[in-house]
C-alpha cells in the first residue's frame, strides 16, 4: 500500500533521507524509530507530497505521490504530532468539515456521530468547542476523519507523545482495530514500548538511513531497546 523506492531528500549538503526502501502492506503497522532528525518526519512529509524528493519515489496504492498528488491523498489519512483542529468549531463540526472535504460530498450526521462513538469520544463532547479538548480527544477526531475517509493507509507522526498512559493505550487499540480492518499504517515514534506492542515491524533510522528492520514477534521489549541503543551509539 505504501512504498518507498530509493527515496532521498537533501537540503543543500544536508541529507535528511538517504535511499529509503520500504513497503507497508495492508493490515501492517510499521513503526519508524530513531532520534530527532533521523528522517522519520521527512519520510511522512514525502508520502504526503508536502516536500518533493531529491530522488526516488514514494508510492501510495501503486501511484507516485509526486505526479498523482490529489489522487494518492484519497487513500491516506494523516495524523500529525501536533493535532490541530479549528478551535472555534466543535468536534463534530471539525469532523464534518474534514470528512466532507476528504470524500467530496457531505456525510450524514448520524454516520459522523457513529464514527465518534467508535473512536470512543466521550458522549456529549462532540458538541463542545475543540479548544476545550485534550490532545487525546483531538486525536480521536482525526482518527474518526480517517474512518470517514475510509483511508487505506494511515501516516502517523509521533502519535503518542504527550498522551497519558491511558490515552496512549486507547490510541493503540484504535489503530490496531484499523489495521485489523486492513489499513496499512506507517507510524513514526519514539515510544519503543508502543512500537513493540503495536507494530508488526519496526525500522530503526539514523541520519536519514534505515539501518535495520525487525519483526516484532521475533524479540522482546528488552531486546528492542538494546538493538536500538546499539544503532544510536556507533
Amino acid at each position: 500500500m505504501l512504498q518507498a523506492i530509493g527515496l532521498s531528500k537533501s537540503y543543500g549538503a544536508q541529507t535528511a533521507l538517504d535511499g529509503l526502501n520500504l513497503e507497508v502492506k495492508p493490515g501492517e503497522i510499521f513503526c519508524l524509530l530513531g532520534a530527532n532528525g533521523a528522517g522519520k518526519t521527512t519520510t511522512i512529509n514525502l508520502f504526503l507530497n508536502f516536500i518533493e524528493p531529491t530522488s526516488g519515489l514514494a508510492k501510495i496504492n501503486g501511484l507516485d505521490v509526486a505526479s498523482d498528488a490529489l489522487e494518492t491523498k484519497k487513500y491516506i489519512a494523516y495524523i500529525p504530532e501536533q493535532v490541530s483542529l479549528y478551535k472555534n468549531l466543535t468536534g463534530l463540526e471539525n469532523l464534518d468539515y474534514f470528512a466532507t472535504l476528504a470524500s467530496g460530498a457531505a456525510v450524514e450526521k448520524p454516520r459522523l456521530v457513529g464514527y465518534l462513538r467508535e473512536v470512543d469520544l466521550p458522549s456529549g463532547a462532540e458538541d463542545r468547542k475543540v479548544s476545550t479538548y485534550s490532545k487525546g480527544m483531538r486525536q480521536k477526531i482525526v482518527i474518526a476523519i480517517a474512518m470517514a475517509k475510509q483511508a487505506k493507509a494511515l501516516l502517523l507522526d509521533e502519535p503518542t507523545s504527550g498522551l497519558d498512559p491511558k490515552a496512549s493505550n486507547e490510541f493503540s487499540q484504535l489503530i490496531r482495530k484499523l489495521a485489523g480492518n486492513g489499513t496499512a499504517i506507517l507510524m513514526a515514534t519514539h515510544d519503543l514500548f508502543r512500537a513493540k506492542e503495536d507494530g508488526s515491524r519496526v525500522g530503526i533510522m539514523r541520519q536519514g538511513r534505515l539501518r535495520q528492520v525487525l519483526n516484532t514477534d521475533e524479540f522482546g521489549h528488552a531486546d528492542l531497546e538494546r538493538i536500538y541503543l546499539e544503532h544510536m551509539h556507533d
Partner: protein
Amino acid sequence: MISQIAKKEMLEMRRDGRFQVASAIVLGLLLVSLGIGWQQYVSVNRQHEMARAETREQWLSQGKKNPHSAAHYGVYAFKPKSPLSLVDRGADQYTGVAVWLEAHKQNEFKYKPARDANTLARFGDLTASSVLQLLVPLLIILMSFSSFAGERESGTLRLLLSMGIAREKLALGKALGVAGGLGMLLVPAALIGSAALVLASDSGSFVANLPRLGWMTASYLLYFAAFVGISLTVSALAKSARLALVCLLGFWIFNGLAAPRLFSDVSRTVHRTPSSFAFSQRMDGELKKGFDGEALKKKVMAQYGVTSMEALPVNFLGISLKAGEDHGNEVYDKLYSELWDTFEAQNRLQQQGGVVAPLMAMRSVSMGLSGTDFAQFRDFSVAAEKYRRVLNDAMNDDLKNSPKTEGPYMADEKLWSKVPEFAYVMPEVNVVLGQQAWSLGLLVLWALGATGMAGWAATRRLRAE
C-alpha cells in the same frame, strides 16, 4: 466542496469575537454615514428647491425695470445634487454648489461647505464612500490575513492539504468565505442605503439613477475583490500570520493615506494653478483692456447705412452692452478654460495613481458616478454660464430694439418671462463611464490581477509549513 469551505470560513468568523466587533463598528459607521448623507441630501435638496423657486419668482416679479438693471439683478443657479451624492459627496464641498448669474461677470461658486469647516475636517469626512474605500478594505484584511498563514501556523493546513483537496478549490472557497462574511455586513447596508435612496428621491430620479447605482455597486465590488485577492495572496506567501498582517497593513496605509497625499502633491507641483488672488488680478487686467468703443460705433453706423449716431434706428446702448458682454465672455472663456484644464490635468495625473493604489481609481469612479467630481462640476458651470449669456443677450437685445423715448426705457414681466428658467440635466451615465474609462479599467485589472495572483500563490506557492 467550495461552498463547504466558504461556509466553514464564515462559521469561524461568526464565532470570532474580534470579527464581530470590527464588523459591528464598520456597519455602524456605514449606517451613520449613510444617515448623515441622507439627511444632508434631503435638507440641501429642499433648500435648493426653495431657493430655485424663489430666485425664479424674484426674477419674474422684479417689476418694471430697465433690462440692463434686470441683468444686474441676476438669478441664482443651483447645481442639482444627485441622490447618489449621499454615498459620495466628492468635490462638492470644495467647488461649491450655487452661482450667481449676473451681467458682465462670470462669478465664482458660492456655498462651499469646506470653507466653513473647522480643522477637524482635515481628518476626513465621515461619508459612506470613505467607509467603503478605507474601512471595508481594512476589515477585509483583518478577515483574511490569517486565511492561509494562520492555518499554516496552527497546523490545520497540513491536515487540510492531506485531505486531497485541490488547492484552487481551497483558495476559491476561502475567497468566497471572505466575500460571504463581507456580504453579511454589506448586504444589509446596501439594502438600507437603497431604501434611503428611494426615500430621498422621487421615483423618476431614482429610476434615472439606477444605472449609476448599478455601476457604482459593480465598481465597489471590483475594489473589494482586489483587496480579497491581495490579502489571500499575501497570506499564502507570508511565513507567518503576523508578517502577513504587517505587509497588508503597510499596503493599506500606502493605498489609503500615503498615495492620495503623494499624488495630490505631485499633481499640484506638475500642473500649477494660480492663487485665487493672482487669478482674479489677471482676470481684472484682461477685462479692463475692454473693447474699442469708437470702432464699434463706426461699424454699427456702417451696418445701418447712417452717418450719425442719432440716426441709428436702434438703441446703441444695447449693442454696446452686448459687445461688452462678448468681450468679457471671451476673457472668461479663455481664463476659466485654462484654469479648469489645469484642474483636469491634475485629476488625470491623480487617476494615474490608480496603477499603484486602487483607491485612486475607486475614488475617481465613485465621485464620477455620484455626480460630484470635477468634470461634472465643470459641466454644470458651463451650462450655467451659457444660461447667463442667454439671459444677458435677451436683455441687451430687448434694449437694442427698444423705442427711443425721452425717459429711461422700462421692460416688464413680459420680457422676464421670455427667458426660460434655468434647467440643468446631469450628464448621462455613458458620459461619466467614458470619463472614468481609465479608472474603471484599472479597477478591473486590479480585481483580476489580485484574484489571479491569489490563485497562483495558493496553487503554486502554498507550503504546508
